């Protein structure tokens, strides 16, 4: 849950590159902190989805709000995240994503 990336800091915190690594399970307990982190990071934050294995409705709501209100952008969505978003009729959140 606390995976790290070489050029990025702890999940849920904004880093210099304005990128946030999304947790493996995008579920309720993680979300309030993540929402605060996205808001703190400001507009245009990149949400790195490569670690995401599970995502529930609350997580989807967060991504919707983040993309809409913080102009966030999904990057490197995992197959699970991509499949869930497409399945749930939220494929438009993937538009503009970077592989």
């Amino acid at each position, binding site marked *: 849950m606390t995976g790290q990336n070489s050029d990025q800091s702890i999940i849920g915190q904004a880093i210099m590159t304005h990128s946030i690594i999304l947790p493996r399970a995008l579920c*309720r307990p993680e*979300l*309030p902190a993540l*929402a605060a982190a*996205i*808001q703190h990071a400001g507009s245009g934050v990149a949400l790195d989805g490569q670690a995401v294995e599970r*995502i*529930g*409705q*609350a997580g*989807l*709501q*967060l991504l*919707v*709000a*983040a993309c*809409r*209100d*913080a102009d966030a952008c999904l990057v490197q969505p995992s197959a699970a995240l991509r499949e*869930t978003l497409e*399945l*749930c*009729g*939220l494929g438009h959140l993937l538009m503009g994503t970077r592989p």
Partner: protein
Amino acid sequence: MNMEELQQVFFLECEEAMVQAEAGLLALEAGAGDAETINAVFRAVHSVKGGAGAFGFGGLQAFAHRFESALALLREGSRQAEPETVRLLLVACDMLADHVGAVRDTRGPPDDAELMARLDRLVSGDGPQVSGEATAPGEAALDLDALLAALPPAASDWHVTIAPLDQALANGNEPVLLIRELARLGATITCDTSGVPPLAVFDATHARLCWHATLPASVPRAAVEEVFEFCGDTVRLSFDGAVPDDIAPAASTPPPLPVSPPPAPVQAPAQPADAPPAPPQAAEPARAAPVQNRAIRVDLQKLERLFDTVGEIVIAQSMLAQHLRGHASGAGECLGMLDALTRELQDNVMAIRAQPVAAVFSRMPRVVREVAEVTGKAVNIDISGDATELDKLVVERLAEPLTHLIRNAVDHGLEDPAARQAAGKPPTGRLQLAAGHRNGRIYITLADDGRGIDRTRVRAKAIEAGLVSADAVLTDEEIDHLIFAPGFSTAAQVSNISGRGVGMDVVRQTVKELGGRITIQSQPGLGSVFTITLPLTLAIADAMVVQVGAETLVVPLLPIVETLRATPAVLRLMGKRQMLNLRDSFIPVVDLGELHGTGTSDDGVLIVVETETAGRAALRVDAILDSRQVVIKSLEHHYRAVPSVAGATILGDGQVAVIVDVEAVVAQSLAWAKAA
């Protein structure tokens, strides 16, 4: 469900579709149809075609397609429902039934070449530019596409809205998993995100997404409800617009999902749950859908087992009554209640097995059309009382005798148009087929306004065929009944319709096997009325329990006319035969004791019965013990058929008693007397 079971469901649906199609075409023929009537016929034929394609019944599918193409002309308004066109479509409807029957019974396909050509000519408008090419596969495919595009909404996709409530997130009923299941059913999902609040007030405990799923018509509502079966009140489902019928048992339907709207989302511009996207007019069909699902299909064997059990209860109840008689003074009231409840239970179970006679009546217009065409007569048939219900097995077996009666009525009863006009009648003959329920029995009548039975001719033919002696004195009724004699026919020529003298014999035999009777009232020049009287069920009958020597026998109540004491004043010996003087009419006495070799006492009881073959007779027994319902057990199933015995039953004391076959007993006794 395996493939065979699916096919059985398909055949049932075909039957329903064909009844609907024929009813619509008949309405058009009568000038009572409108655009929706044509649409209904089109839908019915289309559903047969669709199923046939799914099961690979190529011949059926091809014919249904051609039929559908012809119907499309009416639907598009490029051709009017002229009598000639509707008649052709009715013939096509009959052929469709033949095709369905062929695949169901794994017979070879019927010869539809000529009819296909006639349909083609109709479709091509007799124009040379299309004729001959109408059957080309490419043409057919194009035509099919056009028809599919024009399909009514009932056969198209349908929609359901899924609005998870907050409890779904709190209880761990993750809605995404449910959406995934819907996708597996073939749903196309769109998401309404308008309820999601701004990021600044994000709250992970509130469900704010709402999904709309579009499902193929082939997915039943129950399949969707099953997905949400265990969600309780955490998800709000609303079915929008027309939802496909569902044949799943009502018992498996999940508990109703909550109808209360979810809490309003924070600062949401639109509230998905409060403002479902379905238009207001779509709400009504969505609410009506569960009503359509109240009918279930049940394996007939299960019903038969239930019916057998009820039969056993009837027996047990009568045994209990017998045991308690005279022993427990306070038991009378309880027994009365038990008796009433048993009868109610029996009535309810019978009602489950009951089927409207419409199932068989609806096939009769086709019979009329076919015979009318062959004989060149113009005939109308009026059907009434087709909602009258009868035991399913009886309804199924009625088809054959009714077919013979109708063929006979058109071929022999009705005159040709010229003769009718000469007799001052309208050129079109009229048949009236009716059913009704009276005194616990079912009456089915077929009346024609034809020439009536020519008794002189019938009598002459019967003498010629050796069925009666030349000097026999016969009443009008007896002469009329000669037409039911095996091998009897007045037809000069054997044709496809009649002349072999088989049909009417079959009528009487089948009606008899159904525990019923048939009577004729015929007036020369005015027509004939055939009346079939049937018991409500074959399994339980009202009967008299009688004593003959040491034996207890059961006589069905249906043929009994009256009973009277056998006093010397009413009995007269004529030759070797004892006769009953019943209000100056002499009827033969059949001594059941003599037939059973037990002998009868002098002061017995006479039971006057009406038989089909031998008219009235009086059965002589020692005493009448009881009048009650008896459960009929077939001897053929448990032992073998025994002449003069219609079956057996178990009496209240556990004793097995045989049920007298009144018809056979009287006929046999009189035959012996004649031989002696």
